[in-house]
């Protein structure tokens, strides 16, 4: 029972705590009517698109002097996209039509919004007369809306006619480079009674131009117009040409009473228009600008389209001592005279040693991650801009910043833990070698070296030579007469040398001895026999019949007879044997030819 009581009390306590902790008190459920949820989400006035559109038409001003300008303006309270403006619409042919424009504004009518579209034509009447644009119909979302007729009276005599209201456009430059932003002022001078009206839905009519409305500045103050200070509503914005060549620029906007769409500065004393605003589409005179393409020559690395005059502070790095893979922030601050809103900072360069990530714009900082510890400075980040005044590219590369990158911390030993909680070193690095130890001439193995492959031809050549030698030797063994003749030729050459020496020395005895030996050597292979065992008759036998009985035979006999004198007991008178030299050589040639 006691337990049940405690449980109930705990439950009640928890419920009370939950109720107290709830941020909102319990409320009764709201009953939302059909469509009411939309009202809750969009508490602003509704846009009226269901009311039948009404069209008005007028000449502003309706009376002009001959040659004076006026505007033909048609207003239809419908959206611009809903209106099918007749393609064959034309003004009376006597009127000279200038520029035309169209624009749309959302006008606030007590408790609802109502679109208003204006069509405007600049008209010049060359001669006096009355001109009427008859009524016509315009298709608005399938229903035909009647546009009433409008008349223009051109006075025959000069009368005081107020000029039509128009916008004035002032530009900081008219001769510019492609992509070079320039400031454009759209001025709505004060109306009658110096009353200032706001301008809304300002647009520039002209292809190849981009308007940056985020840089819109508005003020009311005195403006120099034709040398006279006049109060005016001024709207300034940046325009960037995106196409080269001559461009035509014209501003348009709706006068909107006191409806200022942005913070505004008021300088001097002005009076603001009161009451319900009257939305009137106004135009400026067209202006011409010349857009030059950027020069191709001299473009520097890192050009991202920045045009103007810029400079940068020294880069700042979050830390200059870090490990591989650790990201660091590199901040670069740029200042300048150009359009910093549209300033595109340097792109992240590619680097083998760094991973570089550019932070999202408008930040001009970078995240750098070192991939190696072999770098000692951050990479230079190329950047350049184009200076329109000098017409040149200017280098503004972000310089390197010295850093120290440390490698990873790797272990020098590995430990194991046992079940008892003891840790033991399982593996560790070896001690360094105190000597270079084993060396190779190159890490490239011999298998891949061309000279080694060529070297393998040496033993091949050796074995081929050996084989050839053996073949020759076997052949000579089978043909001993070849060996004998070779040897005889060799011995004959030696005897001839001795013969020459004997002639040179004038030694007749030696001459005949060597001549006889040479003849014996030359005929020895024919027997075959040892040359020492042969006599003159053996030599004669090897001569052919005519030679044997002719002078060669006589010479052989004479030589051998002179050689045999050494065996004689008494000295024999010897003729001039050295004179036989040429004959001996002839006989030896004859014998050698038969070898």
């Amino acid at each position, binding site marked *: 029972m006691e337990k049940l009581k405690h449980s109930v009390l705990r439950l009640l306590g928890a419920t009370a705590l939950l109720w107290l902790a709830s941020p909102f008190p319990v409320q009764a459920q709201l009953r939302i009517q059909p469509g009411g949820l939309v009202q809750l989400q969009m508490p602003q006035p509704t846009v009226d698109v269901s009311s039948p559109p009404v069209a008005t038409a007028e000449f502003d001003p309706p009376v002009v002097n001959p040659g004076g300008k006026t505007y033909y303006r048609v207003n239809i309270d419908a959206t611009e996209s809903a209106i099918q403006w007749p393609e064959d619409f034309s003004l009376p042919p006597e009127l000279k039509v200038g520029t035309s424009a169209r624009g749309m504004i959302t006008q606030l009518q007590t408790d609802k919004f109502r679109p208003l579209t204006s069509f405007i034509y600049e008209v010049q009447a060359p001669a006096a007369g009355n001109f009427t644009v008859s009524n016509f119909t315009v298709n608005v979302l399938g229903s035909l809306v009647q546009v009433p007729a409008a008349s223009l009276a051109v006075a025959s005599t000069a009368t005081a006619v107020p000029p039509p209201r128009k916008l004035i456009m002032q530009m900081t430059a008219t001769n510019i480079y492609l992509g070079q932003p320039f400031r454009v002022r759209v001025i709505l001078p004060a109306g009658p009674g110096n009353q200032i009206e706001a301008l809304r839905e300002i647009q520039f009519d002209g292809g190849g131009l981009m308007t940056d409305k985020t840089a819109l500045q508005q003020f009311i103050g005195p403006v120099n117009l034709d040398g006279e200070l006049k109060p005016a509503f001024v709207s300034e914005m940046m325009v960037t040409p995106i196409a080269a060549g001559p461009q035509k620029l014209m501003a348009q906007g709706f006068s909107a009473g006191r409806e200022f769409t942005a913070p505004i500065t008021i300088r001097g004393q002005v009076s603001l228009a009161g009451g319900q605003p009257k939305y009137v589409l106004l135009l400026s005179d067209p202006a011409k600008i010349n857009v030059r393409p950027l020069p191709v020559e001299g473009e520097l690395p890192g050009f991202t389209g920045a045009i103007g005059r810029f400079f940068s502070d020294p880069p700042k790095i979050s830390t200059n001592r870090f490990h591989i893979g650790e990201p660091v922030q590199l901040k670069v601050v740029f200042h300048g005279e150009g359009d910093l809103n549209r300033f595109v900072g340097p792109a992240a360069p590619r680097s083998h040693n760094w991973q570089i990530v550019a932070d999202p714009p408008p930040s001009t900082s970078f995240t750098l991650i070192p991939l190696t510890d072999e770098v000692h400075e951050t990479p230079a980040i190329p950047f350049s801009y184009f200076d329109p005044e000098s017409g040149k590219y200017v280098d503004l590369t972000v310089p390197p910043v010295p850093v120290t990158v440390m490698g990873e911390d*790797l272990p020098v030993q590995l430990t194991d833990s046992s079940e008892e909680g003891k840790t033991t070193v399982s593996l560790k690095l070896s001690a360094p070698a*105190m000597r270079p130890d084993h*060396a190779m*001439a190159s890490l*490239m193995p011999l298998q891949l070296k061309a000279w080694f492959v060529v070297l393998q031809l040496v033993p091949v050549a050796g074995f081929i030579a050996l084989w050839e030698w053996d073949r020759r030797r076997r052949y000579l063994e089978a043909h001993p007469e070849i060996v004998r003749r070779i040897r005889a030729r060799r011995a004959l050459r030696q005897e001839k040398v001795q013969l020459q020496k004997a002639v040179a020395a004038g030694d007749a005895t030696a001459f005949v001895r060597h001549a006889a030996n040479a003849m014996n050597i030359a005929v020895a292979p024919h027997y075959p026999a040892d040359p020492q065992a042969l006599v003159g008759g053996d030599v004669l036998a090897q001569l052919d019949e005519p030679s044997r009985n002719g002078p060669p035979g006589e010479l052989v006999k004479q030589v051998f007879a002179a050689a045999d004198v050494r065996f004689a007991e008494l000295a024999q008178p010897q003729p001039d044997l050295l004179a036989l030299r040429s004959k001996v050589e002839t006989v030896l040639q004859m014998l050698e030819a038969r070898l």
Partner: protein
Amino acid sequence: MNRICLPSFFRRVNCCRAGVVLLVLVLGLSGVSRAAMSDDFAKGLEFSQAGQFPEAAAAFEKAAKTNPSAGTFLNLGLAEWQRGHAGAAMVAWEQARWINPFDSRAENNLKFAREAAQVDPPQLKWHEAVSTWLPPNAWVWLAGVSLWLAVGLLILPGILRRRKAGWQPWLAALSVGVFLFSLAANYGVVSRTHLGFVIKKNATVRLTPTQDGEVVLTLTSGESARVLRTRGKYFYIHTPGTSGWMEQDDFRLICPP
């Protein structure tokens, strides 16, 4: 008795002489020799002992270029490891083992590094594994000597008109066997020259050899791969996982060209 014993004694002497010549040829001509300590090696040791590992690595690298030796590569690997370059350290130790396969210090360091970095050793084919038993140049000399020894034993007795001894055919057969075996090992050596290791952490393998190529794989420092071909500053590598192009700066071969 003497007439019978003397020729057999001389035959034994000749056999021993041939064996010694073979050993000298294999070990001496293999290109492996004791290197003298160079100035760069000494500087590297000094830097290493002073804890200036980047400078030590630079000195050892210079010494290794002029005089590649197992000790230099061992120390280079230690310096690279101490400065946090796991991949470069593993390559250096592999190069130490390339020069001297019997260097147990390099083998131990490789085992340690792979355990610490959690990478697998390269998967070697059987002929590549065999080629690690001896220095690369020893295999080529072994092949050359064994081939010509076999040819010589078969041809020379006939040419020189000597009687063939009983052991000669056996030695010739053995030489032919060694030659055939060393052919496989030589092929393994050549094949291993294409083996390399990633030296940069998270190195990317790309589909095309361009900086903008699609990344197909990221390899960690110390992982092995085979280079199949080269284009510009890229290697086309093959890993067990996939194939692709890797920048040459991120990869180092055991046997650089």
